[in-house]
């Protein structure tokens, strides 16, 4: 106990507290902005920065939901396939001649249903989150593939492109979608009873249960909300690709987990926050963008981000041991 206090005060002497607490994402972002602007003249062009913003919009929206899930000491590996499935459903509805009035509720319903299944099995049956969501990963992936026969859904009506190409006050729609989702999640997390429960479930779920609080419904709601955000993100993704492919979301959950962890949210005791996640998503997006510009292939990008995830969590647990 005293050894811990000693090392903590030693750490305080070495480094200002706020600097040690700043999530790794900000350092990664700062470092990469510096490196990229020096090495690649193409980086600070309007076209490339818009490109980064558009790429990051889908990932950020997904990461917001993932943040809430990880704050409850959970994980959602199914978000990528759920995004694919929602995109496929919306596209099929639109292509069959029904308008957005049916497509939007359909996609949201699919996302919410997947989240409901995840949440119910985790909260009510007490199953480990990574097993439940891995099972749903397979199910959602399979249904998306079966619905389309493994092909892309194409020939989307022209108005669908508005989700990606539309502009309002000189900002593209994905950026507005990102801002809206962030604002909504921010209010939910920091200014509602739901948000207090998110932190409390991660902090000490057993205490909540024993005190007679209705933990389960809030715990389920977290996964439903993550699924709904994935459904919203699927519209931007589909509009960007101008088609809905059943495997388009594969690996996105991985980037989202990386973003959340880089953003300083911890797997233990409900510590972390939303602003860090946004920085984390931009860090992952810029990292991928930068590796593209440098000419590194997708296979190395994937390996690099694996290293980044392990590094960030390792740093986090090392800090916990030393502070």
């Amino acid at each position: 106990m005293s050894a811990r206090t000693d090392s903590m005060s030693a750490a305080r002497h070495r480094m200002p507290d706020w600097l040690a607490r700043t999530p790794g994402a900000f350092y990664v972002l700062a470092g990469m902005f510096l490196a990229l602007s020096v090495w690649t003249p193409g980086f600070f062009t309007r076209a490339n920065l818009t490109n980064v913003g558009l790429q990051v919009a889908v990932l950020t929206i997904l990461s917001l939901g993932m943040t809430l899930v990880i704050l409850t000491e959970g994980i959602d590996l199914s978000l990528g396939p759920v995004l694919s499935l929602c995109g496929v459903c919306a596209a099929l509805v639109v292509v069959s001649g029904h308008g957005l009035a049916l497509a939007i509720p359909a996609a949201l319903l699919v996302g919410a249903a997947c989240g409901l299944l995840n949440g119910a099995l985790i909260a009510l049956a007490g199953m480990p989150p990574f097993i439940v969501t891995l099972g749903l990963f397979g199910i959602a992936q399979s249904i998306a593939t079966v619905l389309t026969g493994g092909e892309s859904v194409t020939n989307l009506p022209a108005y669908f492109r508005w989700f990606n190409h539309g502009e309002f006050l000189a900002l593209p729609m994905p950026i507005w979608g990102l801002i809206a989702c962030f604002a909504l999640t921010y209010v939910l997390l920091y200014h509602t009873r739901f948000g207090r429960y998110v932190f409390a479930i991660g902090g000490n779920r057993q205490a909540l249960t024993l005190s007679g609080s209705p933990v389960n419904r809030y715990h389920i709601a977290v996964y439903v909300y993550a699924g709904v955000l994935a459904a919203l993100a699927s519209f931007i993704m589909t509009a960007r690709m101008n088609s809905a492919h059943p495997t388009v979301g594969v690996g996105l959950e991985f980037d989202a987990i990386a973003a959340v962890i880089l953003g300083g949210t911890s797997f233990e005791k409900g510590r972390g926050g939303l602003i860090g996640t946004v920085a984390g998503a931009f860090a992952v997006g810029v990292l991928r963008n930068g590796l593209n510009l440098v000419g590194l292939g997708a296979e190395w990008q994937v390996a690099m981000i694996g290293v980044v995830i392990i590094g960030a969590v390792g740093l986090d647990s090392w800090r916990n041991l030393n502070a």
Partner: protein
Amino acid sequence: MTPSELAIPRPLRTLFGERGFIVLTRFLALAALVVALSLLSPVFLTWGNFVVVARQAALQLLMSAGLTVVVLAGGIDLSVGAVLALAACLGATWIATGHIAAGVAAGLGVGLACGLANGVLVAYARIPSFIATYGMLWIAQGLSYAFTKGNVIQGFPAGFRIVGTGFLGGIPVLLWVGVAVVVLLQVLLHYTVFGRSIYAIGGNLSAARRSGMPVRLRLAAVYGLSGLLTGFAALIVIARLNSAESSIGEDLLLPAIAAVCLGGTSLFGGAGSVTGTAIGSLILALIGNGMNLLVIDTLWQNAVMGGIVLLSVVMDQLGGARLLPGR
């Protein structure tokens, strides 16, 4: 007083006991599958089909054996498929040029190295196992794509392929290999200090620490063993397929976990066995065989695997097998 305890119907628990429920349901499932498939398909009860099922079950067991050991120790290894692909690609490049011994060493070495890396991250850096191995999944996958550049490696010497395609005493060599692995692991897990400490670590980590055993070292060794077994499985898989490519492991993770869950091994560690995983692998092989014989679209395969994982865990939970601690 946790919700999971309240959800367990008492009659089921008292009737079968904790492990008895698992054994009973698995044998019922096996019997139901055999009866249903022999009624639905005329080819099911033929020698040729038996060989197919036996080989598939043995392959599945080899791919799930390492995972079983990790799960028994209270962890999870999400990197099995990707590490298998990396070991297969590296081993295959040597074997395809005739250097069988070098290829086998490369495959086993890659598996061991990835496993030990996982083990060090989990045991010494204290990273949650599903995060460390999830990172390793993408690292190994990226490396195997970078290594093969999307090419398929083909054409292995006949002497190597015997393991996957040959017969010994009228029985497929693969089946012998599977049985040997089960026996070896069973002895290791039940009759050695290392094996017993795996159950101790998975059953109660802090009790294991306080008893003075070198928990970190053994935990790292568990992941190393898992990696080694995965490397071994990789060699067998390429001997069976006669080719290796970087995408070979993509759809292997879910079935590997499904076999372990079906085998009744507790996802929180400390309870279960390799023989259980062998039974789980046999059930999966029968389901896969049935889907083939009844011409069900392979696009459904992932959904079936995901459904089996969820169903078996929920069922055991409700049946009182207490796969999960009452926390």
